[in-house]
């Protein structure tokens, strides 16, 4: 174990920065900040324990802690909600976890220029509870909407279920303040003041610091986009007798050109089978229902109502049967909660086993979806045949473009894992399977992650392949900004930036 032991003088310095009340070194505080919902080898939990946890309340405090860590060469791992589906917030090399949950204030609400400036520890649902009084919302809507935090959304460059209408995190965060790995506090955006959406000044640094998984610094404040609170919501669920019809229908719906279209979701046959295990929404559907397509629209009523008619017509013309208002409205309203539950886990003999939901995501072009689907299910079937603690929970494909919901799709295969039963052999098999899943995405011209990030064991090995020469630039940037490799070390193969020169800190 490559543990960095915090010497007592370091603890003393941390106390002088954040105070005794916001520094934690007790085992429970550290064990509970060692993991995220990404696949986790529970049997190796103890390998990822941070040495200390701090809960700062200001950019200044974050900066002081980072400077201290940089001086002493101690790893620093930023942690927001800890709800990510890749390992961004897992302290691979121990060190200090900087947990930003207390930085959750709303600093400024500007209804004229339509921005809200917040601390990175605020949750979107909580923020929207405040914003709705002013008839505006911040429309970043991931599956983790009730619990993930703005800082983590920036760290992973998140994807939103309604991004086809409103954009994703990178489009909705206008600018933000960052503490760099050497402790400087900078503001990055498109250029200009913090409320400017489009500029041509200088390098576009906003994207550089979006999705870096905590390897380039820590967000301490963000200025976000506000949109009018939608006066109308429309959701329609259609069923199909086969995947191919549903897939074609998905493409037609997504290409409809309707400006209020927020997203289209394709459920495959495996997903339906998984939901049918006990889900009241799907049990009553006849066996002929093999695939489902969900569509959602948001906007002003004058636009949504006529567009909804068009959607209903396209759905029917492409072979879909409307599943009714109850499923359409109910399932869409419960979209954050419904689709992954550990209680649905099944062993090959159909016994119920409590399983973790693991979602392997990729960006895949529409034309490639059927082939990727076949290959992915085959890989998971092969894994299950060798290790019955895994379970295939089916696939979703969601429209992935911002504002223009056609072209490529967030494509996910959900795998149940009975983590209590994991051992080194089955964990290794899983890591290999994930790498194979990622390889299929690349073979078909895709990206191995649309929203979670690609720094988990397995797929991370293919990052240099996916990014081509881009990975060499990543290493150079990493080394330039973080000369001592203190910021979330071990992620994204970026340790190689230092190994190449034979100077691993």
């Amino acid at each position, binding site marked *: 174990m490559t543990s960095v032991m915090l010497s007592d003088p370091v603890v003393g310095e941390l106390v002088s920065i954040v105070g005794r009340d916001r520094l934690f070194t007790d085992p429970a505080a550290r064990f*509970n900040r060692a993991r995220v919902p990404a696949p986790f080898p529970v049997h190796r939990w103890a390998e990822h324990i941070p040495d200390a946890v701090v809960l700062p309340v200001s950019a200044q405090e974050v900066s002081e802690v980072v400077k201290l860590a940089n001086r002493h060469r101690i790893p620093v791992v930023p942690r927001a909600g800890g709800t990510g589906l890749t390992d961004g917030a897992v302290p691979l090399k121990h060190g200090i976890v900087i947990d930003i949950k207390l930085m959750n204030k709303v600093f400024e609400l500007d209804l004229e220029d339509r921005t809200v400036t917040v601390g990175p520890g605020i949750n979107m649902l909580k923020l929207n509870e405040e914003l709705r009084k002013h008839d505006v919302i911040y429309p970043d809507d991931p599956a983790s909407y009730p619990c993930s935090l703005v800082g983590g959304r920036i760290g992973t460059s998140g994807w939103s279920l309604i991004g086809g209408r409103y954009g994703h995190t990178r489009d909705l965060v206008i600018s933000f303040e960052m503490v760099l790995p050497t402790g400087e506090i900078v503001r990055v955006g498109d250029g200009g003041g913090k409320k400017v959406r489009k500029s041509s000044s200088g390098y576009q640094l906003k994207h550089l610091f979006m999705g870096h998984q905590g390897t380039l610094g820590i967000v301490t404040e963000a200025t976000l986009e506000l949109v009018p609170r939608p006066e109308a919501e429309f959701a329609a669920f259609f069923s199909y007798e086969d995947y191919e019809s549903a897939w074609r229908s998905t493409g037609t719906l997504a290409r409809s050109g309707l400006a209020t279209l927020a997203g289209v979701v394709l459920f495959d046959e495996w997903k339906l089978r998984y939901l049918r295990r006990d889900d009241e929404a799907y049990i009553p559907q006849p066996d002929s229902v093999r695939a489902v397509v969900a569509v959602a629209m948001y906007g002003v009523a004058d636009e949504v109502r006529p567009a909804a008619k068009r959607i209903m017509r396209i759905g029917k013309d492409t072979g879909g049967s409307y599943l009714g208002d109850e499923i359409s409205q109910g399932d869409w309203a419960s979209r954050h909660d419904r689709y992954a539950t550990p209680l649905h886990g099944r062993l090959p003999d159909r016994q119920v086993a409590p399983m*973790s939901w693991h979602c392997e995501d990729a960006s895949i072009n529409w034309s490639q979806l059927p082939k990727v689907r076949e290959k992915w299910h085959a890989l998971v079937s092969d894994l299950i045949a060798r290790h019955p603690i895994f379970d295939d929970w089916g696939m979703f494909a969601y429209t992935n473009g911002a504002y223009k919901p056609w072209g490529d799709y967030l494509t996910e295969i959900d795998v149940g894992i009975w983590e209590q039963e994991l051992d080194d052999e089955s964990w290794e098999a899983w890591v290999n399977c994930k790498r194979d899943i990622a390889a299929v995405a690349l073979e078909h011209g895709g990206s191995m992650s649309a929203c979670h990030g690609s720094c988990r064991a397995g797929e991370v090995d293919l990052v240099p392949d996916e990014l081509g020469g881009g990975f060499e630039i990543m290493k150079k940037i990493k080394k330039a900004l973080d000369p001592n490799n203190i910021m979330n070390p071990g992620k994204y193969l970026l340790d190689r930036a230092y190994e190449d020169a034979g100077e691993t800190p």
Partner: protein
Amino acid sequence: MTQHETQDDRRSAADNGLQAEFVERWRDAAYNCYSSGHKFCREVCPVMQVTRDEAHTPTAFHANIVAMEMGHLSVEDVARDYVHCTQCGACELRCPNTLFTGDFYRFRTRTVEVVRAMRALAVDSGVEQEGWKRWVELTDRSRSEPVMGDIEVSQDHVADWARGLDIPIGGETLLFCDCEGAFFRTSTPRAAARILKVAGVEFGLMQEQWCCGGPAAEMGYVEKARSFAEHNIADWRSVGAKRIIVFDPHDYITFTEDYPRYFGDDFDFEIVLMVELVAELVRDGKLELSRPVEKTVTYHDACRLNKRKGIHEAPREILRAIPGLTFKDVDHVTQWSYCSGAGAGLGIERPDLTAEISRRRIERAAELEVDALVSACVWSERPLSEQGGKRAEPIEVLDLLELVAQSAGLDDEKVGS
């Protein structure tokens, strides 16, 4: 600093058999949370909303058990974290496992029970919280909870609240008066008694009422709690009681959940919640609310009614029946994330958190531009009143029964606080 290498030592130190038994009992339920990882419970948790500390989340309360099973943590490591819970039940309701598949699998995430069980394990393992320990000792000595502040609590004064109301001892129906009501907010039990009388409900008091034992059970002192229960039940039986009316939601939980667990089928008393009874009396025309109350109010959903028992309609029905009242309602689901912070002993160990949770609740009410916040939980009313009174534009905190008594024309002299 102690580091990773001490885990094995910790495992052997903690393994006194009790912990192993506890882990065996809760491991699978804990894993159902651990494996889900949704963490949707967090932002509705009244404590987590203030401390923002992941160790105070329902997720951590379950994950700790997984870590204990693996020998990473022991009850000594985690006991203090479990102080940070009001047992309001919001997390259980917000859990996707409960919401979407619980019915099918007959499963419900039971974080409140987990917290209670861990606190009991801590007490049984000798890991006690000083404030709770003292509180339970004092309760044991004076048979009623010490309630907070400089108030003399003793059996000699347990029925002082009823002075002048001419309530008999005994009978088929008893009114059980909560400790906070008996010694601090006496206006609430007085209102309750006068309402019952005017509506023609016959009732009496216990010969010797002791604390219900609920708070001790919530803090982990299960045996002590049970001894209180045994006394109270014996008292009920000795006067031939069959029906117990309670106005405090905490008592309601204790009598409908703890007592049946202690006594099984032998527990054959009907427990009646005062707000439900009042709603029924109004509905049936037995209680006339005719005097207008010219106030603008909102209602605070008491956690133990709304989140633990699903009772949110009766209090609203009563408020809508009061003439003159402008009632600005906030729906009961939004209120899953509201709390006064007073429950489950939090105010004893962390009064700072109770005060802050109450302050935030009062600010929610203030946004609605109301004169008063109406609660149906006597325990919530003290911290809420304190915060309401601190505002530049104070917000009054009323008990629903006090408001009902007012509207029924049942004026009472100011008693108690």
